[in-house]
């Protein structure tokens, strides 16, 4: 049967993929994709726990808010990327290193 641990495994794997994407990719939008993966894995965990252990809907609510905030974050992130592209003509992550000390 489907048990809680199977969901944990799936979300863990999603989390790993997210991390790998963020580290390995150089294109800022790919990194944003990675972030979406991370957020999804977290939301999945919440819903899974709310079904298997907590028996109440708090997990669902948390997942909802994660989705809402992820949408807002994606919107603003992409706006910044577009403006970054307008300024630097490239969306390569290494170009965004003005904060270098």
């Amino acid at each position, binding site marked *: 049967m489907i048990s809680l641990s199977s969901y944990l495994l799936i979300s863990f794997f999603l989390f790993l993929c997210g991390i790998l994407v963020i*580290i390995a990719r150089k294109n800022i939008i790919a990194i944003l*994709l990675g972030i*979406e993966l991370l957020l999804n894995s977290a939301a999945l965990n919440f819903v899974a726990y709310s079904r298997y252990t907590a028996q109440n809907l708090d997990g669902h609510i948390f997942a909802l808010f994660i989705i809402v905030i992820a*949408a807002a974050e994606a919107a603003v992130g992409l706006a910044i990327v577009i403006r970054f592209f*307008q300024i630097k003509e490239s969306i390569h992550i290494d170009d965004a290193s003005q904060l270098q000390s």
Partner: protein
Amino acid sequence: MFVKFLFLISTLLTLAGAIGVVAVKNIMHACVFLLASLIGVAGLYVTLGADFVSAVQLVVYVGGVVILMIFAVMLTGGDKADFFNKFGFEKVSAMGNKKTYLVGSAVLIVFTLSVGKIIFNIIDLKSSKDPQSYVSTVEQLGHLLLTDHVLAFEASSVVLLGALIGAAIIARPNRGVK
């Protein structure tokens, strides 16, 4: 049972999508793979009895975020990977080359070791305790959202408004700015 079957399909979809996002070279393909994995996650939510969350996931992620990503890709010069920056060095390719994947996987190994220590000893795939039947969560969620979590609800509406206006202003085309 039907749910088990759906669970299988959804996990396959999610994992394949995730791997796709990691592996694929072309950014547009990565977006489509992300789309697939998100749909898979929506399916997982259904198996977890969270029907409203899965519907919202479909509407928000599939309907909104992925299209946003694709638009962003279009607006920032499509998927031609630019290899050379202004100083002429051969830049690391836009979608990452062997070296970056190496570093990434190294980090992954360290991470899996430490987190895995916890996860692997609480995993017991055999336990077949599937708690309860599927009941509609929409009314309950609505109720909870507007009673216990009303502050978060209102705050998120403000956040969304902020993001809405912010994104619009930041991404205004150049001609506006002198």
